[in-house]
């Protein structure tokens, strides 16, 4: 039977190298089991290979994105298209109003070769649900010895269940290269759920401002976290950003002035509004800190958009990563 779309390399890597007979036999058993699976779920394939020189720092960057994801939610959806990877955290309709995160990466920037085929020609995409902290554990290897990993291959494979297989070639003391294989279980999502993970619309914000250096912001927010669980972010069109918290014991406000503002070519009507007026939204401090703590990418611009009393939208652009973070206002605002 022809199994369309499943790469031959989905067989366990070590088996092919050692040619261990007994292992090969158990693999054959697995294969026949997988044939059943592949009949039930769509034939999906995706594989990317990154070599250290080109993808090296990029993979480090990806690791940081994944690290942020792990901090934010238990589950994340990875959407794969021919050109891009999207990480989506979205819990629509929950009572707890979890933040939404949308991260977009250009695959070509991180992988030297990519092969992909989605659900069908018409819908050439793959949606996978996974636990980000399982993936971030794997990628933390890059954080510690970036130069050491020579090669990274990521592919979608069906072992006992669908998983993302990461194969990393590491140097070893002997002449033979050491290959480390990690499998991260994933759950392919059927097409009827895809509409839940579409790109969010840019919110109709009333104020938009570039954040000051995140390190400074983070320190202030960390101190404020000890005073209250909610923080109010306010900005006006004169480049002033105000962070404030209130508790029984103290009220604290920090003013960042003379910040630059991004130019958006929407809303001609907006220019009529009072420049000094502050637009604000109150959000959970912990969620804001998760976002700020994740961004050690280095100097990059983060845009903060505020929708009065509804939401804070953080928009980060660096290299080929676009990160959007939607913080809903808390009920008390």
């Amino acid at each position: 039977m022809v199994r369309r779309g499943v790469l031959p390399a989905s067989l366990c890597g070590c088996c092919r190298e050692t040619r261990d007979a007994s292992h090969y036999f158990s693999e054959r058993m697995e294969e026949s089991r997988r044939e059943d699976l592949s009949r039930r779920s769509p034939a999906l394939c995706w594989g990317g290979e990154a070599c250290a020189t080109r993808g090296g720092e990029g993979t480090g960057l990806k690791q940081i994105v994944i690290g942020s994801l792990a901090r934010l939610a238990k589950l994340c959806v990875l959407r794969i298209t021919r050109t891009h990877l999207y990480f989506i955290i979205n819990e629509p309709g929950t009572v707890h109003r979890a933040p939404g995160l949308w991260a977009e990466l250009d695959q070509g920037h991180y992988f030297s070769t990519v092969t992909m085929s989605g659900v069908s020609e018409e819908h050439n995409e793959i949606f996978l649900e996974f636990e980000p902290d399982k993936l971030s554990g794997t990628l933390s290897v890059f954080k510690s010895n970036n130069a050491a990993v020579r090669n990274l291959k990521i592919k979608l494979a069906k072992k006992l269940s669908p998983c993302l297989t990461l194969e990393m070639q590491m140097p070893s003391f002997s002449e033979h290269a050491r290959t480390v294989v990690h499998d991260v279980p994933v759950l392919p999502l059927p097409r009827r759920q895809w509409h839940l993970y579409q790109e969010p619309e840019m919110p109709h914000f009333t104020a938009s401002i570039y954040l000051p250096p995140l390190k400074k912001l983070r320190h202030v927010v960390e101190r404020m976290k000890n005073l209250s669980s909610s923080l109010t972010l306010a900005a006006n069109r004169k480049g002033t950003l105000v962070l404030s918290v209130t508790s029984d014991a103290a009220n604290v406000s920090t003013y960042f002035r003379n910040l630059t503002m991004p130019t958006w070519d929407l809303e001609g009507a907006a220019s009529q509004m009072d420049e000094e007026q502050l637009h604000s939204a109150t959000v959970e401090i912990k969620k804001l800190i998760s976002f700020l703590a994740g961004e050690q990418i280095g100097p990059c611009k983060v845009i903060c958009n505020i929708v009065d009393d509804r939401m804070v939208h953080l928009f980060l652009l660096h290299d080929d990563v676009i990160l959007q973070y939607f913080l809903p206002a808390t009920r008390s605002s």
Partner: protein
Amino acid sequence: MSIHPEEEREINDGHFRAKTDNVKNILQILKTMNFRDQANVVLSPSGIKVTVENAKCAQANAFIESDLFQEYEIEEEMVIFKLNLTSWIECLNIFGGGTAGAATPSLKMVYRGHGYPLVLELEEDGVVTDCEIKTEEPEDTLDFDFFSTEVMNKIIMRSECLKEVFTDLDVTSEMVEILMSPDAPYFRVSTFGNYGTSQTEISMESEMVEHFECKQTLKQRYRLSLLKPSIKPLTAALKVSVRMDARGFLCLQFMIRTESHHICFIEYFCCPEEEDSDD
């Protein structure tokens, strides 16, 4: 919360107003006292006194003299209120005391009188933080009446050696016994833990001892849990004076040098543990 114009806001009409270029001076002192959330604050022409009490058996007082500040004005003789010390410290620490090499955050404090909050304004590199810390009626504090007793043993020593002794105290011992005597062993700290008794002696001839004045042998026991909060100011101090009076009350005085090389004092009083037997 209202937005303020770019020009410096006028803080006037206050009963009290103080300004310093480096918030770290006062932050460092207050951090060592933070074993309780609440503190009494006394503002007077000579400076600021902060009092923290522990279970009505121990008390710490910090004296921040007015000359530590670049500007210091007060209209009344004495103003007293209570506030949340932990929040005050968080506010003072909002900029983290400045990064290495960069300008240190400056601090302005204003208090307008009874019922008003303590208002802080901190500034670093153009970023301004305003804080309002609510004040309450002050609590009654203990008066240890230390100076009226005649008999007093006093030893002044460099803080390092006492620091070592205190940080190494056996935590399984509920009590700490301190002996001060004109005869050997002169100064001894003992603990009685699960695994045995531990004693550390410092002789009056030690290089660490700068001043030794003991009129009679005094030995008292104190709860370890009550003495523990004194370790923080001890760690920050250059020198410490240990005094014990005939009633067995202990007074530790810590001399601390701030970042801007001002000297501040913190004193720590502790009640002795009632003993049934006669030592």
